């Protein structure tokens, strides 16, 4: 890593990280490919969940052993929770098991788009923040909701790029741009909906601090190569943002000097 990248730390609550790519651990073809893809992504933070064991199996233990062997920081989620009560109880169980105050808070409001129930989200965020959790809320680009989440105690916001698993990229560029402008000092993470590395680069070029994705890597034909591609795209987008891109303009302007041209 060069000096330029080393100085570019991102703080989530009291934790500083250098990797701005957060990666989910679900849907990979095999545990071996998951491990190799996580290494290729250079992610420092991975999302995990809590589930029942099926049929008396012990899949959870071997999965947890794999994650711990990779030395990664975990961000447990409340995926699938549809009520405040479910989300709060799941967060409490996650803290007990994973030993971290971090929680990716999802309160899902409807099935078609897996859109956040922002009313339940704010309520659950307040309960959890008051209880000492460091909440990473999965939200929309709605500024009013965002203000209420910050008021509840959240110090990170994670607006969706597009619906979970859709791979549509950044659906609402105007809204995301407005969110960045409105909260210049809050860590903002695009969570969900990214399908291609170019979309991750675009998020960074908008000034977003990090991206969180799962399906785009896990369901790629070659997850390890795609993890590498996302890592490169995140680095390119972030570096470009820090390098201050030129302003677009409507008319052409010659890049080759006009002065000294022959036949004039």
């Amino acid at each position, binding site marked *: 890593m060069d000096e330029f990248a080393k100085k570019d730390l991102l703080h989530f609550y009291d934790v500083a990280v250098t990797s701005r790519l957060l990666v989910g651990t679900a849907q990979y073809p095999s545990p071996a490919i998951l491990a190799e893809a996580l290494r290729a992504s250079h992610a420092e933070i991975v*999302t995990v969940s809590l589930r*029942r064991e099926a049929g008396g199996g012990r899949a959870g233990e071997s999965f947890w052993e794999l994650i711990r062997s990779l030395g990664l920081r975990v961000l447990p989620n409340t995926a699938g929770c549809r009520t405040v009560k479910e989300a709060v109880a799941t967060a409490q169980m996650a803290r007990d098991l*994973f030993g971290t105050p971090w929680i990716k808070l999802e309160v899902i409001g409807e099935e078609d788009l897996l859109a956040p129930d922002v009313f339940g989200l704010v309520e659950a965020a307040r309960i959890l923040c008051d209880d000492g959790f460091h909440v990473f809320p999965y939200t929309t680009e709605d500024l009013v909701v965002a203000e209420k989440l910050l008021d509840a105690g959240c110090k990170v916001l994670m607006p969706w790029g597009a619906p979970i698993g859709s791979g549509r990229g950044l659906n609402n560029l105007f809204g995301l741009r407005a969110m960045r402008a409105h909260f210049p000092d809050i860590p903002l993470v695009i969570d969900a909906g990214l399908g291609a590395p170019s979309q991750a680069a675009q998020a960074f070029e908008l000034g977003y601090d990090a991206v969180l994705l799962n399906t785009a890597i896990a369901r790629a034909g070659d997850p390890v190569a795609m993890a590498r591609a996302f890592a490169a795209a995140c680095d390119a987008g972030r570096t470009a943002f820090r390098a201050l891109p030129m302003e677009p303009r409507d008319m052409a302007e010659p890049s080759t000097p006009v002065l000294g041209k022959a036949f004039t």
Partner: protein
Amino acid sequence: MKIVLNGEAFSAQSSDLDALLAELDYEPALVATAVNETFVRAKERSATPLREGDRVEILTPRQGG
């Protein structure tokens, strides 16, 4: 005693949550627990009696996005 374990009927021999984990051969540090939709901390399991009809959740780490 008949309880509901992870959504399915189960006939438990144990009288408290800690003993139930042992009965099921779970490693206590690798699970999270709830009874009747209320979270039960690891250190509170032995003091959490099971009663007929209780709904017990035992969750383990899993892949997530």
